[in-house]
Structures are given as structure tokens and as C-alpha cells.
């Protein structure tokens, strides 16, 4: 089992924004049908790492392999073609459109094409969206409701459903439980479990260790743009929390030693931003 080719492998990813080194050589592995938790303090580089995988940012250095094959991901479309979808932290939904329109945003079903004008197949999109919501057990009364009239939890569910709608292999969720009520958090975590049960591979970023503990198989910690811990999620929640918090706040830093020696900060060059 350990020999199986991972669905995603990122190697030595580096990314700077002007003088800020957001990522300083990070490796990441995600196995088939695995839920990986990604934690770390604010500005640790979690979102940046995931935006590189989803094609929103281009890394300065590093390689990405999808199912063992080297992938060139330079925009969200490349990532999407590889089956990678991301639910962004600030919810990439258009509030003025209804649920179905959001699920199909950018990939509208077309019934008739007249030159540059494509007529939408609303019926198909409505039905497919309804089927998707049913499959994921998402409770929204109508796919014709505008997203702005939904609750925070329902919006998050729509964003996740949208990300898993089109033969997605890997779903990335950036802080899906931030700013939600306790009940809504429970529903989102149920949704993550449901997706795993249906065979998805998932990376979930969260501040809330108990969320990660509940749904993840493995967890990795980023600190100042570096991976400081990569461990299976097991054992008692209190032990788990204590151990992980030590890595998050930097009280413990024994991971990098011997595994992959990082150069000192002074030696790292300040790289120009690549657009």
C-alpha cells in the first residue's frame, strides 16, 4: 500500500511575493482517497501552497506530479483539467446568481450554438445541480434560490458541491469552517466525510484542530513557509492537540533536521515575482 503512487505530489515548492518568502521549499504528498489536514499559524503559507496546486499562483521553483506524471499547472484551467478543484477561503461564489448558475459558473451547459452566441441549457443545469445536492445530502430548498439568500453553511456547501461536480479527483478546501456556526460546521464536516466515502481525495486547511482531527487521515503543519510536521491523525484528541500546537507555534522544530536540510535564510535569494 505504501508503494502506491500518490495522487498528488508537490516537491520543493518555493514562492515569494516581492520580499516576502511565503514558501521556502515545501513537499506535499496526498494519497488516493485520503483526507489530508493542513494547519499552521496565520501567514504560514497554507493558502499560497494550495493556490499553487490549483493554478491560481505560479511557483518560483518546484515540481508537481499528478498520479506520478509531471504536471504543468499555470492557471486554474490546467488544474481543473487534471481534476483539481479548490474551494477558496473567500468563497468564490457570485451572490447575484442562483445555486445552479454558481455550480455551473464558467462551464455552462449549452443547448444551441450560433456562432459566438451559445444558448444555455437551463433545464439540464437545474437537474444536474439538484442531483448533485441530493447526492451530497445538501439541504437547499431550490436550485433557483439566489446564493445571497442562503445561510453561511449553505453557501459553503454550494461552494464545495461546485468544486466536486465535474469528475474531480482532488478537492482542496481553504478554511471551510471559518465563520460558521457550530451546527453548520458539523454539516460541512459531514460533507467532507461523505465525499471521502464516495472516493474523493481531499486537502482541508483549518485553524480548528478538532475539525482536522475529526475528518483527516493525516496532517501536516506549515510554519513560516516550511513543513515542520507530517503525521497520521491518531490517538487521543488532547495528546494530538498538544503535540500539533507545539509545532504550530514553533516550540518544537525537529522535522526538517536530517530529512531535508534547508538553507539558512541569509542564503536565500530574494526572487522577483513571476506573473
Amino acid at each position: 500500500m505504501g508503494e502506491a503512487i500518490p495522487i498528488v505530489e508537490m516537491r520543493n515548492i518555493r514562492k515569494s511575493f516581492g520580499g516576502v518568502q511565503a514558501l521556502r521549499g515545501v513537499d506535499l504528498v496526498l494519497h488516493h482517497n485520503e483526507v489530508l489536514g493542513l494547519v499552521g499559524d496565520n501567514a504560514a503559507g497554507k493558502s499560497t501552497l494550495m493556490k499553487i496546486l490549483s493554478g491560481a499562483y505560479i511557483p518560483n521553483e518546484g515540481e508537481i506530479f499528478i498520479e506520478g506524471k509531471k504536471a504543468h499547472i499555470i492557471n486554474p484551467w490546467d488544474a481543473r483539467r487534471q481534476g483539481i478543484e479548490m474551494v477558496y477561503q473567500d468563497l468564490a461564489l457570485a451572490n447575484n446568481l442562483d445555486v445552479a448558475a454558481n455550480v455551473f459558473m464558467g462551464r455552462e451547459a449549452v443547448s444551441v450554438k450560433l456562432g459566438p452566441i451559445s444558448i444555455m441549457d437551463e433545464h439540464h443545469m437545474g437537474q444536474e445541480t439538484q442531483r448533485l445536492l441530493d447526492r451530497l445530502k445538501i439541504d437547499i430548498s431550490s436550485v433557483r434560490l439566489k446564493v445571497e439568500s442562503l445561510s453561511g453553511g449553505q453557501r459553503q456547501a454550494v461552494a464545495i458541491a461546485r468544486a466536486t461536480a465535474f469528475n474531480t479527483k482532488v478537492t482542496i478546501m481553504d478554511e471551510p469552517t471559518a465563520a460558521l456556526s457550530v451546527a453548520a460546521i458539523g454539516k460541512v464536516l459531514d460533507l467532507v466525510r461523505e465525499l471521502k466515502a464516495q472516493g474523493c481525495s481531499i486537502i482541508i486547511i483549518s485553524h480548528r484542530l478538532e475539525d482536522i482531527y475529526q475528518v483527516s487521515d493525516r496532517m501536516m503543519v506549515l510554519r513560516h513557509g516550511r513543513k515542520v510536521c507530517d503525521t497520521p491523525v491518531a490517538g487521543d484528541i488532547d495528546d494530538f492537540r498538544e503535540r500539533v500546537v507545539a509545532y504550530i507555534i514553533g516550540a518544537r522544530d525537529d522535522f526538517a533536521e536530517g530529512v531535508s536540510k534547508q538553507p539558512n535564510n541569509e542564503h536565500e535569494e530574494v526572487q522577483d515575482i513571476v506573473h
Partner: protein
Amino acid sequence: MSTRRFKISFIKDVNKILRQNIREWGMYIALLVIMAIFTITTKGVFISSRNIGNLINQTGYIAVLAVGMTLVIIIRHIDLSVGYLSGFLGAVAATAMVSWHLPVYASIALAVALGVLAGIFTAFLVAQMKIPAFVATLAGWLGYRGALQLVTMSKGTIVIPNAAFNAIGNGYIPDIPDIGILPGVHKLTLILGVLVILLFIINAINNRRKMRAYNFEVLPMHLFIIKLVFVSALVGGITWVLAGYKGLSWTTVVVLIVVLVYNFIMSRTVLGRHIYAVGGNPEAAELSGISVKKITYVIFGSMGMLAGLSGILFASRFKSATTTAGTLFELDAIAAAFVGGASASGGLGKVTGSIIGALVMMSLTSGMNLMGIDISYQYIVRALVLVAAVVFDVATRNREKE
């Protein structure tokens, strides 16, 4: 007893629906109130066939601008340049016919094509150079004003002698031959009006059925019927008034075609959906693979094209191009878009709404002219209407968010 309970629930329904749909219905209410006030203050002159016919013809050149402006506002921009651009392009069409002896069709095509180019140039400044649209188009406002004065400099006013061209702004569609019934009434106009009402009813019933299939809360049956009757009566009334004068003008035909085409694009096509998506959340649209730049080019290109059309309608109506053509059109178009339900925060607005908004603005102008109100007060009233529309937008948006 049960009728009383029905009455109470009916009033509750109306109240609730009005609250929920105040954005959509507010403009119809505003239009009716304005029309009623002017009808009273002018002792019925305002509602006469002749005045309504003229009013609708005057609305034409603002209405096409308002349609384009609504789209611009949907994607969170503004275009201040369209007034003088419209005036300038009308003058170009006039010059093409009078000085260069181009045929009518070529002159119209030239003005419209130049309009598209002007719009693409604006889009270049906005999308490529990242200049705020109000600055880029303020420059356009100044530039096209200068260009208009250059074109009309030698004569001051370019008189257009071409009858076919002038018919666009002054002519009416022909009638079917007299068959003895309804003498003195424009029968083709009546037939078209009835067709429009039928299409509207069929479309509304279809939509209602579809929305119900999706579990979507629709208007209760009695309110739905009231809405159908209300809109049918409005269209029927206008048709009857027009048929009593000279019938449907060519200007109205042009406006109706623009409305039909734009409404179709905005509600049924992928392009329209992408425009709303960009207006609702540009970052999300971009991440979904929609090119915000491309949409910006399309929207400003269409705005320029409609400015060309507006310039032609105006020049044709006054059978000439003047140095002041297009002055303040942009204000009326922007006000029309906001009165018609477009939102300053983007993503909201309908083509049909902008036409109602344009009717509101032109009713104000026409009514105040009939009442002999001084132009200085007219400016102030129009400014207040613009402010009121935006305040209404902000207030209803805030309430919806709660």
C-alpha cells in the same frame, strides 16, 4: 367569514410580495405616479396620443443608451462619454451623407462601427491599463465634445436632406389596407400590441411552471393573475394610445429590436450569464475561467455601438447634426439605468428595467416642458431623481442583506 379571511391573507400576500420585489416594482410605480401627476397638472395633454407618441420617440435615443449603460453598470463600471460620443457619431453620419455623399446604409454602418471602435478604446484603457472607468470616460466626454465641435465647426448645424434617414426618427410603420372596421386607428400597431401581450402571457406562464418544478416559491395564483392583467393593460393602453395617433414609429421598432436582442443575450446565453457573473464577483468569475477582460471589451464595445445608434436616432429625429447634440444624454442614461433597477454595487440590472427607467426620465422632461418649467429647475429635478434612485438602490440592498 371566509371572504374576510381571504381578504386579510390577500393583503398580507400583497404586502409581502411588494416588500420582496420592491426593487422590481418600484420603477413601475414611479412611472405610473409621474404619468398621473403630469396628466393632472397638464389637464390631460400629457396623456394625449400625440404627446405619448412624441414622448416614446424622444425616449428612443436615451433608451438605447440606457440598455448599454445598464450592462456597463452590471459589471461595476460607468461610461460618462456616451453623450458626446452619440452626438459626435450622429455628426459623422450627417457629414458622411452630406459631404461625402455616402448612401444612408453606409453612413449608418460607419457611425456604428466607429462607435464600436470608441468602445473598444475605452475598454483598452479600463481593462488593459487599469484606469478607473470614470476617469477614462471623463476624458472621452471631453474628447468627443471637442470632436463634435470640430465636425460641425464649418456650418454650425449640418442639415440632413435625406428622407429615408430622417424617417428613422420621424416615420411610422405602414398600416394594413383599410377593411372597414376601426377607421382612423392604426390596425397593424394594434395587432402587434396584441401579439406582444400574448407572447408575454405565454412566457410568464411557462416561467412560472418551470420555477415551480424547481420548488421555487412563486407568486400566489391570484397575484400572478393581477400581474398579468396589470402588464397586459399597460401594454394594451400604450398600444391603443399609439394606434390612435400614427401607430408604431420606426424609432420604437428599433428600440424594441435592441431590447429583444439584449434581453435574450442577457437571460438565455452563456455570454449574458458570464456578464452577470463578472458583475457579481469578478474574482470568482476569473477563477472559474471567465475572462473579465474579454467581458469588459464586449460591454464597452456594445456601449459604443449603441452610442452610434443613439446618435443616428437623434440626428434623424432633428434632421440635422448640431454642436450640442448629445449634451447630458449620459446623465439621463445613467439615471435611467438606476431607476430601472441597476445597482451601483454591480451584478444587478435588467434590459427591460432600463427601458422603464428611460421612460421615467423622458416623462419628466416632457411633462416639465409641457408645464413650462424653467430649464434650470428641470436640471435640479433630474439630479434629484438620479440621487433618489441610487438612495433607493442602497436602501433596498441593505435591507435585503439583513
